[in-house]
């Protein structure tokens, strides 16, 4: 059976560093960056991207709609 794998793209400038997605991700993909963005917030980034399943949980709880989620089923396309 194909293992679904995922990836996220985070709009770093829109992110307010609220930390909600970081705590919500079931596979601990996300972290807040030590570097601040243009607004002075520490934006979320996929620190452990390989663990992403594309479950969308982070995007569902992000109040600022910063996260786009992708999914890919490897052997469906192969």
């Amino acid at each position, binding site marked *: 059976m194909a293992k679904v794998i995922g990836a996220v793209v985070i709009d770093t400038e829109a992110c307010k560093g*609220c930390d*909600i997605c970081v705590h919500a991700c079931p596979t601990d993909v996300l972290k807040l960056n030590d570097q601040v963005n243009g607004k002075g917030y520490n934006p979320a980034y996929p620190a452990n991207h390989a663990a992403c399943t594309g479950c969308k949980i982070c995007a569902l709880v992000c109040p*600022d709609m910063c996260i786009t989620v992708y999914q890919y089923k490897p052997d469906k396309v192969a």
Partner: protein
Amino acid sequence: MTTSVITPEEIIKKGTVVFKKTELMTNNTLSYCPGCGHGVAHRLVMEVIEEMGIGEETIGVAPVGCSVLAYDFMNVDMQQAAHGRAPAVATGIKRVYPEKYVFTYQGDGDLAAIGTSETIHACNRGENIVIIFINNGIYGMTGGQMAPTTLAGMKSSTSPYGRSIPTMGYPIKMTELVAHLPGVAYATRQAVHEAKYVRKAKKAIQKAFENQRDLKGTSIVEIVSNCNSGWKMTPVDANKWLEENMLPYFPLGDIKK
């Protein structure tokens, strides 16, 4: 075939988008504090309207409160109402344009304090509108004053020792209250601080708009939300506090359907 070598960049290139921001939200930066539930609630209303294909036929009414600028964020026709008057304004709009979908978006100070009368009478008339009611237990915009929904013992800038029931009364359950009125077709309480609640809240909002399409009367969707600034907590702590303190008093689920 090995699956472990694929990089996130390749997944993004070859994969399918399973979540992206709805086009019915504008690209304006939300004026809300980091982690505020208003953003998720806005998005759900707009996602439902987009998926129902009624963006061109919908008119929203924004309140006074933190979401006073909802018209800058929601990419549908909007009108901003005087404090608490959104259900009266929505009544007028719906009567002039009965074929349009009309909704209000209101906080608990707006809907359950200054606008109590407008809320109750619009519901009692069974106005065929959707009311989205954001209950964060406080006046967010003006600096965290006590709202009618503030929990017993909860501190706010006007109840610095905590809400005292003998002098300040009980937190009001507006959705239960209006559910008694025959004009109300659907009354439900939802939340948006975790993904499992977000999914249910979206279904409830969709049902409310379908009720309007089917001429059923008033639908009210309460969303128990956070105000981390007013509660003086981090967003993550506020959501935990909400779960442990707000939900026991304001239980989630359908009150009337």
